[in-house]
């Protein structure tokens, strides 16, 4: 399988209108995956500056490589507590 699973939370899930998406990708950067994501869900675009990302449950930067089978999370500013 060549799928990357993307999970969206909080305000990002709201803006995209979905909490989960799948993309056919392997060896792309998080930044490239973000482009694929905003192509499909353009309402996410303005949020870019506020978002963080996680790959397989750990924070990751835009240049990090994503492989098939990875789980990517789109994380708005956390507001626990």
């Amino acid at each position, binding site marked *: 399988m060549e799928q990357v699973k993307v999970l969206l*939370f*909080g*305000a990002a899930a709201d803006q995209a209108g979905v909490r989960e998406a799948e993309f056919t990708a392997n060896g792309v950067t998080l930044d490239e995956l973000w482009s694929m994501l905003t192509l499909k869900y353009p309402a996410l675009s303005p949020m870019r500056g506020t978002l963080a990302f996680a790959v397989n449950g750990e924070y990751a930067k835009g240049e990090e490589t994503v492989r098939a089978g990875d789980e990517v999370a789109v994380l*708005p500013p*956390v507001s*626990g507590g």
Partner: protein
Amino acid sequence: MFRIVEVPIDVGALVSGAFRPDCGAVATFVGTTRVDEGAGAEVEYLEYEAYRPMADRKLEQIGAEIEERWDVGHVSIVHRLGRVDPGEPSVVIVVASPRRGPAFEASRYAIERIKEIVPIWKREIWSDGYVWVGSQVGTRSTPAG
């Protein structure tokens, strides 16, 4: 003990669970739902969601950071998800230490770190819509309210 739960938190049991004969100080922080008011509306309740199991691991990481930095005998953090009504606890932090300085510092550190690194989000549910705290995205016509 680090736990994310979807039921009310038994604060008394958590605090008592930290008492130890080798510790003289137990500092506790409880975050509760506060009713803000603005623009003719008010917060009815908060609703929390988390990215699990990452959120669970980040709570554990905060516990490990505390044990590296301070002499503590016990650290518990419990965060609630779902609907939390006004005056109810959403997060409880309990730190026991031989001395009070480390207990106060570590409990404060824990809540600051939760607000920095733990993937948990809250919506304020107002009488006229909701707003995601921190993102200011929602359905209220006056989200700054």
